[in-house]
């Protein structure tokens, strides 16, 4: 077979005639990181709020949380991306819509992409956190309530500090998911890592060098995510944790 593999293609000039492919790929990594980090932080914040709503004793709060999650979990991410990018400017008041449409590259793509990934990520993280909250023994909340803490204080000081620790492993794969899903932004023209690799493949015809580089980039980014989460898990591990786990199982089955 005759595929002409070349390592030097990365230092060739890219289609813009100024930067090397290596540079444009690194720019792609930068946008992927910016997109994933923004969406990750926003999703964690609002996901926590929705998770609290989903576990709240009030029927109405629970209902609002559930509706949110069910809407954003059950529409394909790519369709949501198109809704944010193509449909939102049309249904907003005309001035706003025009303002959105006139935003140039790359912010005109970046902002809808962050919105899309954040709304979607919020729903996913909310479900992960809800599972963590519900895995705590019910007595923990009662103990906080019994000492006179308000419901918000119970969440803030008793429930959430424990729930975050429990969900670190599933949270790791959710954050990796956000990094992976950020590639969908290429469909609205954001040149993140996959988008840059695709551009390189189209202009240089060095298909597999381009995709290998992108693959290495994602493996590196997600490797960092895994290591960071491992660090957090160790850093926040609780002394006497084994006994603690055994006791949680005990009180879980007794109630």
């Amino acid at each position, binding site marked *: 077979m005759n595929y002409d593999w070349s390592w030097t293609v990365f230092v060739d000039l890219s289609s813009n005639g100024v930067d090397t492919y290596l540079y444009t790929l690194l720019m792609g990594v930068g946008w992927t990181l910016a997109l994933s980090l923004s969406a990750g932080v926003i999703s964690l914040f609002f996901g926590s709020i929705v998770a609290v709503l989903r576990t709240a004793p009030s029927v109405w709060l629970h209902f609002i949380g559930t509706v949110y999650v069910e809407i954003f979990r059950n529409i394909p991410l790519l369709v949501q991306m198109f809704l944010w990018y193509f449909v939102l400017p049309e249904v907003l008041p005309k001035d706003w819509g025009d303002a959105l449409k006139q935003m140039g590259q790359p912010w005109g793509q970046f902002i809808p992409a962050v919105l899309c990934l954040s709304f979607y990520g919020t729903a996913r993280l909310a479900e992960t956190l809800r599972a963590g909250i519900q895995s705590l*023994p019910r*007595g*923990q909340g*009662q*103990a*906080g*309530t*019994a*000492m*006179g*803490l*308000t419901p918000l*204080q119970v969440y803030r*000081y*008793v429930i959430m*500090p*424990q729930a975050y*620790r429990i969900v670190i492993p599933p949270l790791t794969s959710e954050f990796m998911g956000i990094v992976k899903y950020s590639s969908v932004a290429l469909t609205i023209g954001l040149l993140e890592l996959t988008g840059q690799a695709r551009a390189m493949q189209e202009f240089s015809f060095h298909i597999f060098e381009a995709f290998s580089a992108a693959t290495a980039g994602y493996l590196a980014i997600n490797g960092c995510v895994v290591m960071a989460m491992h660090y957090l898990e160790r850093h926040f591990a*609780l*002394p*006497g*944790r*084994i*006994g*603690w786990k055994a*006791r949680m199982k*005990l*009180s879980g089955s*007794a109630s």
Partner: protein
Amino acid sequence: MIEFNNVSKWYGEFQVLDNCTTHVSKGEVVVVCGPSGSGKSTLIKTVNALEPFEKGTVWVNGISVGDAKTDLPKLRARAGMVFQHFELFPHLSVTENLCMGQIKVLKRNPEEAKAKAHALLDRVGLLAHKDKHPGMLSGGQQQRVAIARALSMDPMVMLFDEPTSALDPEMVNEVLDVMSDLAREGMTMMVVTHEMGFARRVADRVIFMDGGKIIEDCATSEFFDNADARSERTRLFLSKILQH
């Protein structure tokens, strides 16, 4: 101090509390016993509104628990509760467990709260463990910390929900000893327990519940020593629980 008037509660169709009327006076120790599912835990949890109820009234020191206008966190802060599974906060050190309520609810300054926490840990014999996390302590030690945590709020009444039933047998006494000391000092206490020896030694009154109803409500000596005056169900329960 605590008055229950015709308290009833349902879980859907199932009635957990059926017209319960009783009282606890200041300084009194009342033991509540009965078979599992008899509603005894539910009854003491109505005192600090952990369990809402549909009918009747519960008064604590002149405050109506069921009243929508009652400031529940304020009421709860004055009623210490000890749980079956301790429910210490595993992410906080022992000292922090004792300080949380004092600082967040009673608004004490951290120094004052810490001093009080250490004094109480000393009292239950656990000052040496003040900086450990709950997971590093034995069950008996954890329950003593939980009692100290409840005491840190200067409660006017202490509620115990089966405080020894999750413990290994050899740890039961260290917890009961702390409770007996409390009773001797004049603390008002409601205790759900199967420890009949403790009831006989420490309680002023014993309440026996079955099927959500209060079947017996009498002085301790009357409850244990005048078996003929007891109901059929009480005698059956006592014969089962006292056999070994």
